[in-house]
């Protein structure tokens, strides 16, 4: 009876040891990965279309955008790409006030 108890105890202890060992490996791996990779950079919420860097996904036409209270500006990239970028509702702080955007690009 005592021998059966001690055999069962031994098996349980072995399982616990294995569990701790494996969880230690897992935890160590995660810690190592966190140290090596660090924190991810915050993803930009802006939408890049052509050379336009817009606060929101384009959701209106350029003519509609220009008809409202807006900020419109041109940009160039790679020497031949030309775009007109437009945003509506830019009176708020940062991108928070932007409700609509539009763009149009052409190459020459």
């Amino acid at each position, binding site marked *: 009876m005592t021998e059966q108890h001690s055999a069962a105890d031994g098996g349980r202890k072995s399982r616990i*040891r*294995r569990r701790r*060992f*494996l969880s230690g*490996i897992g935890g*160590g*791996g995660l810690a*190592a*990965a966190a140290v*090596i*990779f660090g924190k991810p950079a915050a993803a930009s919420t802006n939408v*890049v279309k052509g*050379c*336009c*860097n*817009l606060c929101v996904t384009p959701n209106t036409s350029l003519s509609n955008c220009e008809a409202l209270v807006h*900020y*419109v*500006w*041109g*940009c*160039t*990239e*790679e*020497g*031949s790409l*030309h775009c007109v*970028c437009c*945003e509506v509702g*830019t*009176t*708020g*702080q*940062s*991108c928070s*006030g*932007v409700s609509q955007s539009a763009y149009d690009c052409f190459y020459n």
Partner: protein
Amino acid sequence: MLFVFGFALLVLAAAVVVLFAMLAELASRLPDRPRRSMTIRRLDGLRLERAPDAWPGGLPARDHSVLLVLSTICSSCEDVARQLVSDPGHADWTAAAVVVSTADRIRGAEFVTQFGLERFPHFIDEGGKWVSGEFGVQTSPAALVFGGGRLRSAYEFNDVAALRAALDRAPHTEHEKEEV
């Protein structure tokens, strides 16, 4: 047996972590864009030879300066801002200043801070009203070259080093070539 298995697992996990770290390091060393344009093109339709009515306080003397007009709505301007500060950096360009055209002042200030442009004389141009009102500039990145208090020439560009090289060898008058 358990020890050997655990050790093998640890080595395997470490190898995977190192592999991903190496890939990330390699990826970070690759340029985002294949190659930025070295073309410097003259901007047409601007008010050349104009002496501006107003000159913002944060900018260098208008007798001899180059204003780099960037916009917060322009993704290629972010690349130019990075070049100015760290890629490779142009702190030695004492004639240069930055005008940030932006929808609102806060966003313009964020742009200056984000890219470390504080080290250059700069002016946040809300709505781009100053550069468009005084000179007719409505696009970025643009370089406005001033001499004797007047706008002598203006260019669109994407590479700061190429712009500097072109300005060094070009006469800054309205009679310049189409492309420098």
